[in-house]
């Protein structure tokens, strides 16, 4: 089913929109949540919560890319779930990924900015990257993929993936430092 048709169903409050969205993007969302939480049970719950949240958000939201929209919701839910349960168990890959990300945090701070401006900045940074760099970076830090999986998906070596990630983390840190912002 076309994304527009599914979104129209959301707008018409036709509950089959949820099952249509689940059929088309359920697995996608599940895999996003699984990469973060490392738990099948949690991933399943995140998938279900995503659809419920989408039901509440659409309308008024009218996403251009339904799959990515749902995956973004799911990722946020999964991160929340992971934070809540981190005391009980950890996903080693997620821990490593988050530790790597902390290195991007700028050391210099001047202005406090809101989410809208943060969104502009991060997308400006993403646009400045080469496509391959951006894909590798987001597969690691958005999709929380293992480095070897990224290497296979992109058809390059593990060493190259690691190098690209390191350099892009440094670039990102410098980018935010140059902008002089607190995030």
């Amino acid at each position, binding site marked *: 089913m*076309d994304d527009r048709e599914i979104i129209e169903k959301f707008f018409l409050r036709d509950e089959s929109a949820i099952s249509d969205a689940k*059929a088309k993007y359920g697995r996608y969302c599940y*895999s996003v949540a699984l990469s973060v939480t490392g*738990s099948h*049970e*949690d991933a399943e719950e995140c998938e279900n919560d995503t659809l419920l949240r989408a039901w509440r958000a659409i309308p008024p939201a009218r996403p*251009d*890319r339904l*799959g*990515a*929209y749902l*995956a*973004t919701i799911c*990722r*946020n839910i999964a*991160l929340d779930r992971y*934070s809540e349960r981190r005391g009980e*168990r*950890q996903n*080693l890959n997620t*821990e*490593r990924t*988050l*530790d*790597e*990300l*902390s*290195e*991007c*945090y700028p050391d210099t701070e001047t202005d406090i900015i809101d*989410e809208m401006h*943060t969104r502009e900045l*991060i*997308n400006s940074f*993403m646009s400045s990257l080469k*496509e391959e760099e*951006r894909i590798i*970076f*987001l*597969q690691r*830090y*958005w*999709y929380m*993929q293992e480095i*070897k*999986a*990224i*290497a*296979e*998906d*992109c*058809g390059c*070596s*593990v*060493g*190259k993936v*690691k*190098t690209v990630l*390191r350099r892009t983390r440094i670039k990102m840190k410098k980018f935010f430092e140059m902008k002089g912002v607190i*995030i």
Partner: protein
Amino acid sequence: MKREKMARIIGLVDEKFVEEAAPRRKRRGRKPLALALVAAVLTLAILGGALFLFVPYSDKSPIIDIDKYRDSEYYPLIEAMYNITIQNAFTLNLPMNNFDRIFAQVKNTMAPTDDLLYGVEEDTAGSNDTPGYVETTDNQVEGVIEGDRIKRSTTHIFYLGVETIYIYEILGEQTSLVSSLKLTASEGKMILDDGLEFYLSEDCSRLTVVAPMWDVNSKRSKCSVDIISIDVSNPAEPKEAQRVSISGQYVSSRLVDGCVMVVTNFVVYGEPDFSVESEFIPQITTDDEERSIAMEDIFLPEADAQNATYTVIVMLDESDLSIDDELALFSYSKELYVSQDKIFASMGYVDVIETDIDVDSSTKKTTRKVVNKTEIAVISYDNSGFETLGSISIDGTVLNQYSMDEHDNILRVVSTTNETYSEKEIFSGGGESSIVTGRKKNTSLYCVELDNFSVIASVEGFAPEGEEVTSVRFNGDICYVCTADTKFYRDPVYFFDLSDVNNITYTDTGDIEGYSSSLVDMGEGLLLGIGYVDSLDSLKLELYVEEGEAVRGIASMEKFSVAYSDNYKAYFIDREHDLIGLAIYDYKKQNSFYNLYGFDGSGFVELCSVDIEGTELDICRGTIIDGVLYVLFEDKLYTQMIFGE
């Protein structure tokens, strides 16, 4: 916290970038309007087909009628695969409608992770007594040679850079390049650098290259391995002699008594067409002829098969790449341990115990206990081929090949054990809720008698609750185990005395700062840990010694804002002189260096630091010949005198 904040910030990226980076999508460049128009026309033309594609399947109706394959020799396999791909579609991300069936593929999550190090012996006979050959790779088992990117004879160094073999004549600081040979891929394929390695024959006349390949055009399994024999009898004119291809992603290889054993992991993608053998049976290609592995050479597990994957093991004669034997282990993982005469292959699975309870007239409750287990298949091998001997199951999951070791006909295994408890309530009104009520994670060691495949001794739960195994090293009757607490980058190292399996004792270091990803036995009761201090961009070298009831760190060296390879083969270890060499990238100096450290009895000393150019630290190699340090990195050679004559 910073890391969570950054994770949220990354979540603000535009959906177009999220979509672009989605894993398992074919990478395309942007095309102009003409293609968009063509796409629009095609979309209209197949609208009816789109409806056909997205109608979900009924849960009850099978997708394939496999009865028509009953006469096939592969029917037991087809049946096992059908049960996995159809009945367990949720776990394997398999299709629920025609769209998924045609375009989905099962993600291959298995990739090589050789990550432990024994060290590098220098100028020893190793397993080769023929004059000329010098073993440079320290192998887990004596006599079982492992592939690497550097091999040498008494006169030449052979180095595998980025898809190119370089041959140097050894002349100290005047060493020069004799020749080079760029490796080629078959049409439609590209060479993958990760895993690329080779062997040198005993008479130093042949290189056997193991080259992982990626088929850019394949819609299903993209991975294969080419084994390439290169004639280097005249080092000035190396040339390719033979080539064999095996389907699957490269896992590992060994050279034993003139036989090269190559291991791949072949994944069955999506819903295979069982009338096309190459879609569900591993293939071997020789002299441009492709054939399937016979059913009699395929081993199915005792426990229910969990994945539609194979661990493929092919034994080739190193001299001409003729195939001596082949074996495919269905549903087994990449974690293989190879001893002098046996192969141990592991398969992770879960044991589920469910108990139903009637809470009241309208509510049922199910308690569920899920235990991770591993089945280990044992296969003997010699020059005549393979023979399967049997299998054993233990609790937990096995990290890698170094978690298993055979000694005096006893298999020792270290695993991370995992139990998950949950409850599900089903209400008569149709609703249900499920919650996880508890989890347990710990580490265990098991000893298995190989005559009757029984566990004869074990130490269970020896680490603090919640920890997992991060590295293991066996050395005769001693076993070293690192476990991890990733929250605080702290981990203990455990020493096990396995000399009496009826009375296994162990000591631990207590909490040690840092996190060892590699353990090296330096001999004389010393153990070297190579790992991290407080982040992944740090390096820590630490030397431990066993003293009575305790294990004590006696020297350490830390560096910050650096990166280094966690590929154990990239480390140079000289036990005789207590030397450690490895390549690092210094973020502050924005440059790469090859550093050689020594231990002077009280601490680590940096003996030299060679400025090197390049980014692929995994492929940098160092070795010392007659007091001269040779560093080989991509297409360059660096030499430096370390010890005078």
